[in-house]
């Protein structure tokens, strides 16, 4: 059991992690997600006692890491596959770690076999590929046969066989009753491996719930509509008609339309009334990736923009359509159509406070930041003194409700993307 309470880490004036509280329970694989620079690795380092928290604490089985008796026998960690001395052979590397923790030397050969490195055990790890380094790191984590395991990006650089192996390894470790905490960027992998998700953005907790709840709370199901390819006019006509009926319509790359905000029968009726034939009308359930994108897009620090090659373009010949961008390329609103029943902009993104979503922390932050408020409201670098609607009255609840409050607050999430409609800074780029 890993328990973090009010965990905060500042480097100078940069806050890497702010008031993070969560629990990781045994017997399940808990995924740890967040965009680049959101504080995942910092949190992992604090759990392992490598970094001292600026405030708050994190314990494993009731002890801070550095007070754990026989830490290596209780906790195993893969932090960074390259955290080895390249001049040392794989076997000697593991042997030195085993000796340090009082683990019998034959355990070293055992774990080398488990990760499939026994044939290169006596080779210097400098020559290892990324995947082999990853296996060596996993071997080090398994060395003490610990109850708690932390893996930071375990499948980085692994081949498909290795990915499958890691996935099954995580599941079997959890099935043995161990606590398994895995950070990853690979959503498809997380969807298959994790039972529970902890999502952070800009160092704050965004969500702490099971994978199933996460997807249903953060995805907007949409309808894919395809009009005859041969008649582009029909597509425009339908698009206008649907928009007029209150739907949100986004063109897809292959010419289909992504429609949200209207039930399928209604889409069909509108098409019929407009006299447009349909080639496809299909319901679409969002994946974990889409749910994740929707939740975190307000807190992404490093976002790509469209490569415009300004001034290098030949003027488009008259009559041709500009190409439809690929999802995610300079199209921040892509993953976040307003969920059904919430068509209008969220109160938090009302025109009166257009800076809220544009600020460093959008509406998802408000839900995540809420538990922090009672501790040090003035110190919260992300909190904006914007007048909050009544719903936010719950904000002053004690931190004890942090975790339970998160699911309840999730309807606020779409406000971030909806807000970007108001300002449209990135669309204009």
């Amino acid at each position, binding site marked *: 059991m890993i328990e973090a309470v009010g965990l905060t880490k500042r480097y100078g004036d940069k806050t890497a992690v702010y008031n993070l509280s969560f629990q990781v329970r045994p017997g399940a694989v808990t995924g740890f997600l967040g965009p680049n620079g959101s504080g995942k690795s910092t949190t992992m380092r604090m759990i392992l*006692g490598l970094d001292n928290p600026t405030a708050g604490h994190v314990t494993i089985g009731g002890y801070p890491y550095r007070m754990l008796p026989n830490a290596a026998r209780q906790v195993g960690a893969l932090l960074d596959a390259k*955290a080895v001395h390249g001049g040392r*052979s794989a076997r000697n590397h593991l042997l*030195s770690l085993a000796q*340090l923790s*009082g683990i019998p030397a034959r355990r070293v050969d055992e774990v080398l076999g488990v990760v499939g490195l026994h044939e290169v055990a006596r080779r210097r790890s400098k020559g290892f590929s990324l995947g082999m380094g990853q296996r060596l790191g996993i071997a080090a984590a398994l060395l*003490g046969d610990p109850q708690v395991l932390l893996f930071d990006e375990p499948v980085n650089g692994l081949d498909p066989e290795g990915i499958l192996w890691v996935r099954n390894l995580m599941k079997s470790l959890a099935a043995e009753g*161990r606590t398994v905490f895995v950070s990853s960027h690979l959503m498809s992998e997380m969807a298959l491996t994790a039972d529970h998700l902890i999502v952070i953005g800009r160092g704050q907790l965004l969500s702490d719930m099971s994978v199933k709840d996460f997807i249903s709370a953060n995805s907007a199901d949409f309808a894919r509509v395809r009009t005859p390819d041969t008649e582009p006019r029909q597509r425009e006509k339908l698009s206008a008609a649907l928009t007029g009926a209150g739907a949100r319509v986004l063109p897809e790359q292959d010419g289909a339309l992504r429609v949200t905000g209207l039930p399928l029968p209604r889409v069909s009726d509108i098409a019929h009334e407009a006299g447009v034939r349909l080639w496809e009308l299909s319901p679409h359930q969002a994946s974990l990736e889409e749910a994740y994108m929707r939740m975190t897009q307000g807190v992404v620090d490093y976002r790509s923009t469209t490569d415009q090659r300004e001034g290098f373009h030949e003027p488009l010949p008259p009559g041709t359509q500009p190409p439809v961008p690929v999802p995610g390329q300079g199209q921040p609103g892509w993953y976040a159509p307003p969920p059904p029943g919430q068509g209008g902009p969220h109160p938090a993104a009302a025109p009166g406070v257009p800076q809220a979503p544009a600020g460093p922390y959008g509406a998802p932050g408000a839900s995540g930041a809420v538990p922090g408020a009672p501790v040090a409201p003035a110190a919260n670098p992300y909190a904006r003194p914007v007048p909050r609607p009544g719903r936010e009255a719950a904000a002053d609840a004690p931190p004890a409700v942090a*975790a339970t409050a998160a699911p309840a607050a999730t309807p606020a999430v779409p406000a971030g993307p909806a807000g970007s409609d108001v300002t449209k800074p990135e669309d204009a780029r």
Partner: protein
Amino acid sequence: MSTPQPPTQPAAPAGEAAPGAAHPAFPYPAPGPAYPGYTSPIPVVRTHFGHALASEWTKIKSVRSTMWTLGVFVLLVVGVGLLTGLVVTSTESDLSGESALSLGFFGLLLGSMCVITLGVLTTASEYGTGMIRTTMVACPSRGRVLLAKALVFFLVAFAVTLLSTTVVAFLHVAMLKGNNAGDPTGNEWLKATLGISLYIALLGTLSLAVGSVVRHSAGAITLMIGAVLAPLVVAMFMFSSSLEDVRTVLFEYSIPNQLSVFYANSLGTSGPSGWDPLWIMTGLTAVVLGGAFVLLGRRDV
């Protein structure tokens, strides 16, 4: 999984957890029954300093830089010692009663650079490669790791230096019998073998501590070589008579001069003499190692 359980503890007030404090004071919940679910069949032993020593011994002998630096060290000490001996015998110089042991100085002065390099690499290379994080996760008692490193390195450096200096001492005494060299006394023998070996091993341990503080191999090696050479070089350019005293102190307490004290051919007469350099180096190493110990416990890895 169902709805997450709320944390049972309220967050500690901000003032309670001072930045930099390793463990903010707060009441930990009594550790309940160990983990539900999984217990390892591998017996759990209580780790101690001996485990860390075994681990550091494995580490130091399993990297090539150890073999290289110590190999070059032996080569320099014995090789240069042999050469100086040959030069003196072939030119038939008259040592006029001076001890033959004093010729060992030149090889050792060069060789000390190798010991400094290895000392720095023992700690700083773990930072360069990221290995330190793996080590500190395996053993959160950081001070134990540092002390084990220092002790293992000290013993290795001492053993190798003692071996090479003893070989060179015997060589010189045997070679220079015909050059009117004085018979070394027992104390001179001790200083030229045991004394100088302890001094060099301590100098290496000082470098190890500096490596742990600086956490960067090249930086720490530069710093240490500078510390060895700079006082002499600086003193050389102090022409002004008002700086005469400073200049003398720099000369006499510079590391090369301290080394030469073990061979009784010091640059001055007022500075350290006898076994003094050993005490100076012991004190200096203890202070820096203590600083490294404290810093290691406080800093983020």
